[in-house]
């Protein structure tokens, strides 16, 4: 059995192609059914997100499966395969396993380390489970992929730092205030980035939102969406001392908030720290304010700088993750190759033979002096027992059809606690018969 992956992603196909290839979630059952009906596919699932469309399959004949999957991908969306060929990748065996583990661990994502992809694959897998297209191998494979993804997240710092400007602001705030619970945020001017950052702040516990804008009605509207209060633009500076976190993005050509404004506010709030995020270009807050003891002022370049260095940090962590994945790929492939009849039977025999010889020795030791003839008889009897016990299971293992064989083998290995030595892939004559 082999894992096969066919698909395209943001790395190989532009969005114009990806959007046409996406599988609709409502039709997933039918898609999966058609996928399973492909002659070379034993198990399968479909991952369809805005950044990637991938088919994962388990097959006895990976070459054919790869071709059939590519056809399936193209024809499902009314394409001719040759039109898509340049965008499609097809991985088999170790390469396919590695690819899926990397995708789940978010190493193949547009923003390395972003967590959404794992959730999307989990839901694709649960569809496959619901519609019965996942079997023993795919189940084991996906569980492996999920646990590797978790390992990567806990053992590397791949997702520990913010890689968006708005989230970087939240992280900074938490290094200043520790908890954002009960803090007050003020939005000066309306900008998309400010709004997004404000949403993050609210999610992290900020309770009071003040909004000010040259156009009062806009301030009112925005304030309403946060359950906050609108403040008149002419006298918002009088409220500065109440503000812990200020987000500014007006279109004003001059400074809107002077260092003197902030100095006065600091005194009024008894030098409790203030965190100012100035996203406007040209800037809204006089940079001299950063010199004030209790003011931390960040402009858009400062935040971009943090995001850039965090991204670099993630790249470094990604290297560690690749090492983890390399080890896990080997482990999984070992399990796959152990799912063959011959080594399982050999291991089973060895196990029982071990028990037999140990027990026999014990018994012989207890009985004391025996004649060679008696000794031989005992040995022959124990051997015959083993053979009789093993006869039926062995023949069942050898005769089961392709679909069930892996299940039986796995069950035997689990029941008898066997770990058969992996056999190289080209050395499994009885598995391909």
């Amino acid at each position, binding site marked *: 059995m082999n894992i096969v992956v066919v698909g395209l992603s943001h790395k190989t196909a532009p969005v114009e192609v990806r959007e046409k290839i996406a599988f609709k979630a409502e039709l997933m059952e039918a898609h999966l059914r058609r996928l399973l009906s492909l002659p070379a596919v034993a198990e399968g699932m479909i991952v369809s997100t805005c950044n990637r469309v991938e088919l994962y399959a388990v097959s006895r004949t990976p070459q054919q499966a790869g071709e059939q999957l590519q056809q399936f991908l193209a024809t499902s969306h009314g394409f001719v395969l040759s039109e898509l060929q340049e965008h499609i990748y097809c991985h088999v065996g170790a390469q396919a396993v590695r690819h899926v583990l990397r995708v789940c661990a978010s190493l193949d994502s547009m923003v390395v380390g972003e967590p959404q992809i794992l959730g999307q694959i989990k839901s694709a897998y649960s569809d496959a489970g619901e519609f019965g297209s996942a079997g023993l191998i795919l189940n084991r494979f996906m569980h492996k992929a999920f646990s590797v993804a978790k390992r990567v997240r806990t053992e590397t710092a791949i997702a520990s730092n913010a890689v968006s400007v708005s989230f970087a602001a939240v992280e900074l705030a938490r290094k*200043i205030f520790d908890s954002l619970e009960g803090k007050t945020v003020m939005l000066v001017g309306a900008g998309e980035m400010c709004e997004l950052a404000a949403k993050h702040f609210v999610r992290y516990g900020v309770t009071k939102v003040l909004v000010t804008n040259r156009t009062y009605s806009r301030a009112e509207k925005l304030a309403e969406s946060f359950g906050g209060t609108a403040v008149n633009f002419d006298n918002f500076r009088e409220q500065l001392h109440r503000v812990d976190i200020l987000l500014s993005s007006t279109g004003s050509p001059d400074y809107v908030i002077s260092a003197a404004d902030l100095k006065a506010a600091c005194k009024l709030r008894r*030098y409790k720290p203030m965190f100012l995020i100035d996203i406007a270009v040209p800037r809204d807050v006089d940079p001299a304010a950063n010199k004030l003891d209790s003011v931390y002022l*960040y402009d858009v370049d*400062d935040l971009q700088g943090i995001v850039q260095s965090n991204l670099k940090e993630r790249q470094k962590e990604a290297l560690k993750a690749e090492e983890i994945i390399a080890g896990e790929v080997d482990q999984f492939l070992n399990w796959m190759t152990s799912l063959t009849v011959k080594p399982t039977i050999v291991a089973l025999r060895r196990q029982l033979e071990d028990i037999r010889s140990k027990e026999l020795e014990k018994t012989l030791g207890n009985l004391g002096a025996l004649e060679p003839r008696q000794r031989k008889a005992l040995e022959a009897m124990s051997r015959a027992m083993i053979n009789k016990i093993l006869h039926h299971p062995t023949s069942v293992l050898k005769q089961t059809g392709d679909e069930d064989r892996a299940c039986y083998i796995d069950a035997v290995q689990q029941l008898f606690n066997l770990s058969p030595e992996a056999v190289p892939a080209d050395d499994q004559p009885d598995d391909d018969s």
Partner: protein
Amino acid sequence: MAHMNLLVAATILAYALASGCYVAAMISKKAGIGRLGRWLLFAGVVVHAAGFAVRHSAAEGLPVTSLHESLSFFAWCLVLLFLLLDLRFRLSVMGAFAAPAALVLMIFSLLSPDVVVPVNPVLRTWLFPIHITFAFLGNAAFALSFGAGVMYLVQDRMLRSKRFNRLYQMLPSIDILDRVNYTCLSIGFPLMTVGIISGAVWANIAWGSYWSWDPKETWALVTWFLYAGLLHGRLTIGWRGRRAAVFSIIAFAFLLFTFIGVSLLFDGYHSFDAFTLLSQLSW
């Protein structure tokens, strides 16, 4: 007294292992190692206390009469207060400061001559242990406030210059560090005050004079005024953050001088020439 040496060795071992754990936790960012460090430090403080108990029964009094014993007792106070602070603020980063500090104090303690100084029975009143204990606990609290102050400045500097290194992730928020700095100050100040007053009352019993401008007394008073000023600034003017951190570092420098420098440089009844057996006591 083999069992006593054994207790000292166990204490040092525990502090050393705890230091290793805290530093390793800081570098590897694994909280589990930090928790192990906390347990080791806790074990250390218990064994350390047992060591004092044994010594106490041998010396018939609180065994803080030589530099050797003083440093050891100070290390114990420091670790005890840190563990209490850690209960409230979960400051394993500070463990990387407190545990090695205790370790270094213990090593210096070992290097200075270990003598049990016979204390003049006239001086052995109930006030002696009170004076010593409060003064030492106060000093330990100020040492921790110094540690928090240094960490505050480091974190503040990174936030302000927008250049971050590994420490940025490890250090807590400046809000927490400021609160720790304040908590230590508000614990340390009353302890120090009681330490000084009980010392004066004791001096009156022993020598018939509350205050004799002994160098230690003078410097302790200067330090006390510094901390009083800092506390006042915090409570009434609203000092906090960087200013308070810098102040607590300066005040601690004075405290260090009072605690160690004065005893070594000047004569007086707090000096550590105790091992010459001329003077009966030391701080």
